[in-house]
């Protein structure tokens, strides 16, 4: 009942497909990381799921039903879309009060979530005086208001201080452990790998990966070795004959992609090339993610 089903979902803005034939499920009881570079279509997917934007084709449902058909949406789904999704002229408490009223949620619950999000002391201040981090906390308070079984959080750590990031990480883990469905978007692998059990990766509106975190690590992070040698020239040509490439790393070390220490050690011994240090290494998760999305990144930073 709390699962999310995305089927052949497409959203075109003019000629540009922000979301392009997406199909995946998000299941309860685990944190699903929704990853992709800026412009990949994460926010658009979430808006389509909430019925805020109309899909060009395909469907996005919750337990088989469109969000628009839910009789008690705030009790089913809590969403943090964008820290700016609130009128700056209202106080935090009034913002939550009108939401609570719309969902027939008792006012007592407003004070509870203000407390839980750590913004009870600023509840009577106008939202326009809030820092980005405080707005995020308000958005999370709003998402928790109806005690929903599904949580959609779009880049919730934006603007949060380190303490806030730890808080939200633990909150999401706890919500998932309670059996809720938690979908949290991010454009940073480093952040997601610390909390997600499952990964959905988007690039240019398309699905690039739908896998458990563990499988992603196994499949995606390639092997490589790091070594020190007194004769890089001969090692380079020996490796090149077998199709490997010697690359310079920091502190006079070298790395070779796609080979293991055992294999390289034997090769060096056969050729009589001195190897002073040799160790297996895994390319970082961040690198694996960057490799995966590199072809699809719409806004690649120019260095």
């Amino acid at each position, binding site marked *: 009942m709390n699962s999310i089903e995305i089927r052949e979902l497409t959203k075109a803005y003019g000629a540009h497909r922000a979301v392009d034939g997406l199909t995946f499920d998000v299941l309860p009881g685990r944190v699903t990381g929704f990853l992709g570079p800026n412009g990949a279509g994460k926010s658009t997917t979430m*808006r389509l799921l*909430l*019925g*805020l*934007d*109309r899909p060009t084709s395909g469907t996005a449902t919750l337990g088989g039903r469109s*969000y*628009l058909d*839910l009789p008690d*949406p*705030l009790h089913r*789904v809590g*969403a943090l*879309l*964008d820290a*700016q*999704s*609130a*009128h*700056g*002229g*209202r*106080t935090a408490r*009034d*913002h939550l*009060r*009108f*939401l609570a*009223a*719309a*969902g*027939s949620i008792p006012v007592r619950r407003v004070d509870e979530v203000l407390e839980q999000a750590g913004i009870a002391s600023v509840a009577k201040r106008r939202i326009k005086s809030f820092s980005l981090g405080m707005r995020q906390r308000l958005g999370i308070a*709003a998402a928790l208001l109806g005690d929903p079984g599904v949580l959609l959080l779009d880049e919730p750590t934006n603007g949060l201080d380190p303490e806030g990031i730890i808080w939200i990480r633990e909150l999401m883990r706890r919500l998932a452990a309670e059996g809720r469905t938690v979908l949290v978007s991010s454009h940073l692998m480093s952040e997601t790998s610390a909390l997600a059990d499952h990964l959905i990766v988007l690039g240019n509106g398309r699905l690039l990966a739908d896998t458990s975190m563990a499988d992603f690590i196994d499949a995606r992070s390639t092997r490589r070795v790091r070594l020190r040698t007194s004769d890089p020239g001969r090692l380079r040509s020996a490796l090149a004959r077998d199709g490997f490439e010697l690359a310079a790393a920091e502190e006079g070390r070298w790395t070779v992609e796609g080979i293991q220490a055992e294999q390289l050690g034997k090769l060096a011994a056969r050729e009589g090339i001195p190897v002073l240090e040799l160790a297996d290494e895994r390319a970082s998760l961040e690198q694996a993610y960057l490799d995966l999305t590199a072809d699809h990144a719409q806004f690649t930073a120019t260095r």
Partner: protein
Amino acid sequence: MRSALPTVPTLHSEWIKIRSLRGTLGGLIAVLVATAGIQALTAAAIGRSEDGSMGDDPLFAAYYGISFGQIAAMVFGAGAVAGEFHNGALRTSLAAVPNRTRFYLSKIATVGVLALLTGQVTGLVTFVAGQAFMGRYALDLGDPGTYRAVVGSGLYLALMALLAAGLTAVLRSGTVVLSLLIPFVLLVSFVVGEAAGGAAQYLPDRAGQLVLHARTQGDLGPWTGLGVMALWAAAAVLGGWLAVRRRDA
């Protein structure tokens, strides 16, 4: 269809939205303060100097202040809807009330009812307060057309608020709507209305204000005039509904 009608929770939610924004609540209060206050001040200043000093039509003169109060009504109506287009506020609202027709009808109903209640109080207070300063030229409640003007002025103010509310939903900006409507009622309608007799009487404010006149010339009577204004407001509200239903939030 029934599933798209406002519910007690959605109306309550809209009422909290309105009263929690300074601009909209202020606009509502300003309807009363501006209409009755300016009426009383003007009457006190020049009302007793000679018969007809505030205009040829003593009934319309009793509502001189409505020219100012109607602007407050527009500010209220536009502000109540424009609040949704501030940042991504509409997304939060629609996540809570996903049925767009219900969301929009709840807002329009809340704006309409509040403007009507305030308008009716304003209509009565303006008449009483204004006439209190008119000395021997004062009209009494019960004189021909006075009840009509008291009730009609409240309806006029409510329709102005709804016109502005509907237009704001179409144009998605209170600032744009007010910068069109305010010059329109202050200048365009006034100038055009003086110059041309025929079509100008069908302009929303011109037609609506006929209900405040003791005598009407032209094709429209006092109530048909208000009816014409109601059609304008209904068209704006309908346009707003289509826009809210169709567009991505």
